[in-house]
């Protein structure tokens, strides 16, 4: 359920970058304060372990399909919340950069959805609570499954909220939730079973590995962190719902420090509009509904259904593809001057 760049708006992507960045900073400070360097390589290698474990698939009974480990809850169980969060964030960063899983702007959303919930919500409040002092019996199975399901459902719900706030998809809220929740409920049960089975195996063969994480206490600041995150999301929701700014307007308002950019900078806007009219060599040719789109009487007779004129649309596509061809050709010309790659492909 990785969010992708193409599905988030700059506002949502930016807000979750800030939220996830703050959580990384907070966790890093906690870890640095522990002054326990021996766990540094363990975190690194466990991150690589999650990565490698995802290569190993298993068949899911009754469905004929196969699945793999997600890893968030297992990391929390082995490392405790703060180290687990940093490790999950690093795994997602590598996946984003090298496997194009999720995007670079959506990275904040992904870290929040897949890292925050298992590390700071389900691990301390569900996984640690249900087994009590009995660590490896049937209660551990219940804890693993409930925590995995809850974590994934929260993450999936967060994906729904982020997508809807971004306004890119046309899916209505109800349909989207009905689609996401059952799917992630099923995935959560499988994930919980795997986590339980792995922990059971480790507890029988090498119980000492589970000691440090069991000693880790639930974070005291987690409620505060959750409250701040909820406030950020709530504020974002309210603001977004009330003003619904376009992405560029949002970034402009960030730069100018005022949301009233258009009114305050009316002259600037007029100037830019003037430049646009003067510079556009195929004016009014995008898919934006053009108020002044020239329409022939024939088209008017055809009906008012089409808000943009086809002539300008085709011209627009041709124009943009021309730009692509020019860029490609310039690249090929420059290629001759560019140094050859250091290694052969």
């Amino acid at each position, binding site marked *: 359920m990785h969010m992708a760049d193409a*599905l988030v*708006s*700059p506002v949502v992507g930016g807000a979750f970058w800030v939220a996830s960045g703050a959580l*990384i*900073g907070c966790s*890093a400070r906690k870890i640095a304060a522990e002054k326990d*360097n021996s766990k540094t*390589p363990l975190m*690194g*290698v*466990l*991150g*690589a*372990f999650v*990565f490698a*474990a995802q290569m*190993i*698939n298993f*068949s899911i009974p009754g469905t004929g399909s*196969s699945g793999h480990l997600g890893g968030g809850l297992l990391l929390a169980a082995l490392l405790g919340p703060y180290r687990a969060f*940093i490790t999950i*964030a690093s795994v997602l*960063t*590598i996946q984003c*950069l*090298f496997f194009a899983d999720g995007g670079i*702007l959506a990275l904040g959303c992904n870290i929040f959805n897949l890292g925050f919930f298992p590390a700071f919500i389900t691990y301390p409040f569900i996984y640690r609570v249900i087994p009590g002092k009995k660590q490896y019996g049937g209660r551990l199975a219940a804890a693993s499954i409930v925590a995995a399901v809850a974590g994934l459902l929260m993450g999936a719900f967060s994906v729904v909220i982020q*997508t809807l706030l971004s*306004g890119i*998809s*046309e*899916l209505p809220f109800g349909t989207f939730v009905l689609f996401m929740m059952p799917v992630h409920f099923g995935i959560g049960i499988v994930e919980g079973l*795997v986590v339980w089975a*792995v922990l*059971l*195996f*480790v507890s029988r*063969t090498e119980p000492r*590995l589970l000691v440090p994480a069991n000693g880790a206490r639930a974070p005291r600041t987690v409620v505060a962190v959750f409250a701040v995150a909820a406030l950020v999301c709530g504020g974002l929701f309210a603001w977004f719902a009330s003003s619904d700014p376009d992405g*560029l307007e*949002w*970034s402009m308002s960030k730069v100018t420090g005022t949301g009233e950019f258009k009114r305050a900078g009316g002259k600037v806007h007029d100037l830019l509009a003037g430049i646009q009219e003067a510079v*556009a060599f195929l004016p009014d040719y995008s*898919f*934006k509904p053009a108020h002044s789109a020239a329409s022939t009487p024939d088209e008017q007779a055809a009906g008012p*259904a*089409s808000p943009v*004129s*086809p002539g300008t*649309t085709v011209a*627009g596509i041709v124009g*943009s593809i021309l*730009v*692509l061809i020019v*860029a490609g050709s310039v690249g*090929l010309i420059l*290629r001759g001057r560019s140094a050859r*790659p*250091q*290694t052969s492909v």
Partner: protein
Amino acid sequence: MRHPAQLDHLHLIGRGSYSPALFLNWRNHRVSLVILLLFVLFVISVPKHDVTAVIVFAAFPLLFVTAGRLPVLFIAKRLLLISPFIIIMAAANPFLDRTPYVRIGTMALSSGLVSGTVIILKSFVTITAVVAFTLCVPFYRMCEVLRGFRVPGVFVTQLVLLYRYSFLLVEEATAMQKARNMRAFRRKGRDLFTTAKLLGSLLLRTHDKADRIYRGMIARGFEGELNKPKADAVRKEELFSAGAAVLVFALIRVVF
């Protein structure tokens, strides 16, 4: 499971095997990361029905890929492995938003079809940009740049270690999976609980590895973080490049 094609060129990624000297030398890695983020931000800010602007933005990765002699086939494979989640989201739009948006002859293109196309195009453009960047900038340099941006040392050290050991563990996991599949008849032995034991033993091996690595790191004077932040003053060229990039991207958004 990850698609095997994702691993085909594992040796290429993060090594900085490609260095188009024309655009990038190691002094420019910092500003190119900033420009990459700005680029993605601008592409994402394109309204959901604006096909032309996305195509025009595609010019930048295309220019970079052709001029830098980047492996086109490799990037194309990455684009084809686009996540099913995006495809579902994009494919749903034409069914959910059937209002005709534009008529070409007798054919009416629905608003949903156009917005779905924009989602796919935006994915292609942003993924190409990120993959091109990672092909050109070695991962350790990217981590140094991040450290320069005051990203916490704990996180940067984590990234370095994760990157370094993922090659080793992926190899090990693949070998373990192959061994299991060779011994498994049909579906027997590939079930969840047998695989969990496999994962458990991979976890034990991982833990032993971490112990050995830690001893190695201590022996070499490790004191908590791998990359110490360097006080690298911002150069005029960097400010100029970032400013020029913002100007060009903004101009494209205004013109197209």
